[in-house]
């Protein structure tokens, strides 16, 4: 991730609330035009990091530059060139779609003609021309998020921070929103997105995983999947499909050559030693399940994060 210029550069950034360290000496770089997916469990410090990068929360120590602006020394400077969409719906519910856009346009001091042009472009982008006069509070979840996105984009920011933009909206709206985000990335906007959804993470160009305030891993998805911690040397990943995976799980777990078993819906993901064949695995569960099949698979991001979290908590408890 060194080919494109770096637009977010975080160095040893920490934030404490009282005795609790929410972001712990975190460092990361994000290149221009990336779609950076930032993952981690609730309370792991995702929102706190975004707030510091947007210049609305002062770090306890460390530094960060966004688009070349130092967000610690001069938090106001960066605000002209970034957009932010918070976790919670934070537009004015009693203003119409158009009035919300007008308001943010004026806040950024857009000239009248520019504002009119941007408004029309954004209403095109989010397909909301028909809702112009509707009050923002009466829109449904997905449309609210689209409007929030439009408001965050009114001043043509080069960098967009989105804090769980798809939390609580339906799958179709979720997919539509991501299509929009990729369209923006295609126009050169850098996106920094937090999410809980693995399928969203899979679509990102770069992902970072934060756990208890520490960045555990950061890189392109394919780099992460190739990490030896995820699939140790001499092993491979196998997916076993069967009619009753939960009954099959205890039979496979701990059996010869099987390093790890995780239940994934109606399938089991296994980490097995190279010597163990598909047929050998299937033979072990033959008695309990029907419709058996097995195939080699690449690790998913979820496999990556599960493996890394386990290793990390083991290290933590050992230390």
């Amino acid at each position, binding site marked *: 991730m060194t080919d494109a210029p770096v637009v977010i550069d975080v160095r040893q950034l920490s934030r404490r609330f009282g005795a609790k360290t929410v972001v712990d000496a975190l460092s990361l770089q994000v290149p221009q035009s990336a779609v950076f997916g930032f993952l981690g469990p609730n309370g792991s410090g995702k929102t706190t990091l975004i*707030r510091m990068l*947007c*210049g*609305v*929360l*002062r770090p306890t120590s460390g530094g960060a530059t966004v688009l070349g602006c130092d967000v610690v020394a001069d*938090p*106001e400077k960066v*605000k*002209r060139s*970034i*957009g*932010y969409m*918070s976790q*919670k*719906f*934070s*537009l*004015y*519910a*009693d*203003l119409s779609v158009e*009035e919300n856009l*007008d*308001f*943010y346009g*004026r*806040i*950024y*001091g857009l000239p009248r003609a520019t504002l009119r042009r941007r408004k029309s472009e954004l209403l095109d982008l989010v397909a909301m021309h028909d809702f112009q006069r509707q*009050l923002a509070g009466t829109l449904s979840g997905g449309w609210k998020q689209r409007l929030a996105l439009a408001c965050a984009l009114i001043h043509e920011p080069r960098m967009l921070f989105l804090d769980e933009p798809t939390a609580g909206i339906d799958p179709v709206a979720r997919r539509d929103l991501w299509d929009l985000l990729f369209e923006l990335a295609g126009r050169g906007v850098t996106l920094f997105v937090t999410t809980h959804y693995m399928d969203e993470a899979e679509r990102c160009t770069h992902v970072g995983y934060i756990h208890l305030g520490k960045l555990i891993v950061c890189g392109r998805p394919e780099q992460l999947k190739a990490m030896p911690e995820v699939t140790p040397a001499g092993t491979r990943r196998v997916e076993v499909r069967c009619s009753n995976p939960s009954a099959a799980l205890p039979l496979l777990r701990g059996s010869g050559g099987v390093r790890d078993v995780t239940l994934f819906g109606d399938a089991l993901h296994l980490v097995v030693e190279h010597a163990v064949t598909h047929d050998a695995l299937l033979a072990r569960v033959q008695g309990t399940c029907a419709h058996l099949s097995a195939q080699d698979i690449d690790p998913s991001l979820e496999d990556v994060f599960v493996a890394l979290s386990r290793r990390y908590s083991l290290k933590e408890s050992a230390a």
Partner: protein
Amino acid sequence: MNGFLAILLKEASHIRRQPSTLFFTFIIPVFEMLIFGYAIDTSVENTPTVVFDACRTRESRELVEALVNSRSFRVVAEAFTHHEYEHAVISGQAKVAVAIPPDFSQKLLAQKEASVQVLIDGSDSQVATAALHSSILLGLNRSIARAKVYAEAQQAAVARDPAGRATLPIDIRPRLLYNPNLESAHFFVPGLIGIIMQVVTLFLTSLAVVREREAGTLEQLFVTPVGRVGLMLGKIVPYAVLGFVETLVVLTVMVFVFQVPIRGDLLLLMPLSILFLLTALGMGLLISTVARTQLEALQFAFMIMLPSFLLSGFVFPRESMPEPIYWLGYAIPVTYFLEILRGIILRAAEWNDLVPHIRGLAVCCVVLLTLSVTRFRKQLD
């Protein structure tokens, strides 16, 4: 000043979308004024009185008549036993009980001192004081009348008027300025205008910032380049305009409903009203930046309202308050504005007469607005 216009237009839209704001600003104050203006009457008249006339002679009847004619007392019942007489006050039937002893006229005619007992319920000090003064005055008047008759009979007099009639040696001639009929409304209604202006503006603005904090829109605003001053002024100005129109409405009600004319210069009153509005709005804004929730903001606002009512001189004269409380009154902006309102409306006071109050109000205004802008940080913590 970044974003001033944007905030201003947005707040105007909020007001437009929420008609209850307008109702609160224009209708409620008029109601309040009618209630306060008509209900508060500090002159004490017609105090319920019970009379126990054990004498029942011409002299005793004359005394009772004089009592009734003073308009201070209203005889609600007559007592026939000593027990009834005492019980009248205990039961609350009357606030005053007058007992004329059986030997009243006998003593008078014998030129001896005749006593009349007056029981006064002292629990309401204002009523009691008035009753006390009226009863003493009544005794004096009756005594002087008898003394005059006696003096005439002796062909003697302490003093005589130019026509040669016997009269009192000292003649006090009070002249009531500005409010000759001593109507409470003249005193209360101008003060009420100040209080109403403060209530409405304080409550409107104390919610202005904290509401956005609760809704999460403030966080969104912090991420924009909006300036602190622009944000604060943008929040104040629309409410200042509302407050100003409201001032005109209540002044109109005062002049045409309560018949309290504005004797002074309206053109002086207007800018000073705006100064006060800005001060009250600054106070609301300060609350809004300190409070974390809307409920907290309302509690703060109530906390400020009470001293504004009681210590500003709106209801109770500040001169009779203990020294520290008296000085505390100067920390309350409405104290200065009440002086200005009463000065201009009732006494036709001019700029020169009001300088100390104007200065005090201006200081409050600058301090409050500066405090609320500097306290406000575009940071979440």
